[in-house]
């Protein structure tokens, strides 16, 4: 049975979270993400979950991680200024391998910036916002339906890989209303972390097998483990032993690569015969799809590669898509962030140029079409 409804992006995010099994939300209001908190406040108590509005984003990220440390699926949502404040405890989640989902509905920055206008200037903050080398997954939906799907996938990945997952989209999609099917996923498509089982004697909470993901010791199950943001050994206690630190960091940073297949996701539109490859995400990807149709009507062959999983960056997919292209265009609502990664990956294999809009307006299809025409002149 399909459940078609008119729903806003932010509401679809909350619906996805509930469908994924999220039972705890801690947040602090900020435009343009507040509807997620409002939805969760209404929905969570109905399903036996808990919503709390904390005193700030430092606290809301801490409470989110705290709930997850208790074994409950947890999430928080915010926008630019709040995302900056969440970075401290997001790093703690990465270090302690505590599953959690952080939604960042992007607005114009820096600082208070443009609270009600869209932007994509947190692409690098989402990857590198917290200090230290750390693993993180960032998903970048571009439709209301996809916000629903990707929020569910965010929980699945967070739980499976014990890693914080960011859902990153701009204000335009967050506030966009579309008619979508929000049929909840089948129970077998919902992932819950593996909890530690077996004898507590000699139990090593951070010892991992081939899959590099240690089972999660749930408090109360008798393991009585220690969790710390200090670099720790397999027992979970602080260590500065270079060999142990090295082994720990290699596993922490390597586990996402081990599971790359599970994480990777891109969308390709008319890439094969394209002269120009467009690489973009979020609202500009919607504009790019329209532009591609218009250009093809005029005999200009353009195609789109859209990272749905933005980080880890889909390097192989980009290299394959860019092969033999005359030019690569990267439209983005910032002064040039995604383009840095595209240039790095392609390493000169194709000329890369940007189309950057940071005036608070979404990029229009005509702007992309025009830029492509310049490139094939």
């Amino acid at each position, binding site marked *: 049975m399909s459940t078609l409804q008119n729903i806003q992006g932010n509401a679809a995010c909350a619906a996805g979270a509930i469908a994924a099994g999220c*039972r*705890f939300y*801690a947040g602090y209001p900020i435009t343009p993400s507040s509807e997620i908190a409002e939805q969760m406040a209404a929905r969570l*108590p*109905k399903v*036996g979950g*808990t919503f*709390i509005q*904390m*005193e*700030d984003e*430092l*606290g*809301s990220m*801490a*409470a*989110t*991680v*705290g*709930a*997850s*440390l*208790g*074994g*409950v699926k*947890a999430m928080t949502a915010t926008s630019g200024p709040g995302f900056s404040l969440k970075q*401290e*405890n997001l790093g*703690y989640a990465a270090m302690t391998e505590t599953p959690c989902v952080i939604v960042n509905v992007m607005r114009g920055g820096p600082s208070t910036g443009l609270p009600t206008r869209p932007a994509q200037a947190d692409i690098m903050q989402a990857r590198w916002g917290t200090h230290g080398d750390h693993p993180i997954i960032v998903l970048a939906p571009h439709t209301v339906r996809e916000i629903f799907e990707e929020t569910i996938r965010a929980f699945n990945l967070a739980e499976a890989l014990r890693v914080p997952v960011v859902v990153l989209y701009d204000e335009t999609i967050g506030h966009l209303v579309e008619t979508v099917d929000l049929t909840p996923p089948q129970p077998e498509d919902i992932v819950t972390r593996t909890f530690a089982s077996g004898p507590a004697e000699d139990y090593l909470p951070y010892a991992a097998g081939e899959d590099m993901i240690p089972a999660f010791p749930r*408090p*109360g*199950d*008798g*393991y*009585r*483990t*220690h*969790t*710390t*943001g*200090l670099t720790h050994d397999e027992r979970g*206690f*602080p260590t500065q032993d270079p060999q142990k630190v090295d082994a720990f960091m290699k596993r922490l940073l390597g586990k996402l690569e081990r599971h790359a297949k599970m994480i990777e996701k891109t969308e390709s539109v008319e890439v094969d015969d394209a002269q120009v490859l467009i690489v973009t995400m979020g609202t500009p990807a919607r504009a790019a799809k329209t532009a591609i149709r218009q250009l093809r009507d005029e005999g200009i062959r353009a195609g789109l590669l859209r990272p749905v999983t933005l980080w880890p960056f889909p390097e192989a997919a980009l290299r394959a898509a860019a092969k033999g292209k005359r030019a690569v265009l990267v439209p983005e609502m910032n002064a040039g962030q995604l383009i840095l990664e595209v240039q790095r990956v392609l390493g000169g294999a194709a000329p890369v140029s940007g189309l950057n809009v940071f005036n608070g307006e979404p990029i229009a299809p005509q702007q992309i079409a025009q830029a492509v025409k310049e490139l094939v002149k």
Partner: protein
Amino acid sequence: MNEIKVTSADEFDIRDWLRTDLMPHFMCPGCGHGIALRALLWACHELGIGKDRLAVVSGIGCSGRTGAYIDANTFHTTHGRPLAFATGLKLARPDLTVIVISGDGDSLAIGGNHLIHACRRNLDMTLVLLNNEVYGMTGGQVSPTTSAERFTTTTPAGNMEPVFDACKLAEGAGASFVGREATLQTPALKDLFKAAIAHKGFSLTEVISDCTEIFGRKNALGSSPEMVLKQKKVMIPAHTDNRVPEPFKPHPFETGVFVRQERPEYGEVYEALRARVREKGK
């Protein structure tokens, strides 16, 4: 919790509650934090708390590092945020007994916002605020509780800032249980912890601890026993009208239980809300 016992100091074997394989610990000889830890575990022992159901959430500092030695579910979080982590943990897992260990810098400076809101919410947990009036872990900088004129590495000419009274702050912010004891009165400190943990709601227990090695040395306060005896001179046990016998630089402090109120506990209030919402949805 099981039956509540009363044990003498000899009857309580702290090793039953410690991760003895982590010894030796990091604390300096004479550090008050270790005495507080003993009193806390003694209280847990007398309350019959099961170690599997005990969650200790701590912040960053010498105070925060003590949590790791407890044989329970221990969470060493980030500087100033243990109360916020504990809020999420307790809401997600009301079955756990949650104790938060924090320092004066951790709770009253960087974590001040979380502290006042935890007092206001009244979620069932106990904060153990180890006040040694200094940032011990980072080498002895001034804290919001450093007494007037005291020397620290960042007040080389003596501290000129007024102090926070953690207990008054907590009372003003609505905490339903507030008390203070000094490490020198270990059995009284144990009893304070017992009452605080047994109290349904948010409890703040301030411990007058001492940082012998750094603060004591910098201010020529003598050995640990000497420091503790100096504290005794400025201590005013609650409900007596003792006067401070001689002027001593640190402000006089009262001990005892200052607030003990029945107030709706946040977790229970939220559970009632869930029931209401479900009823409406029918």
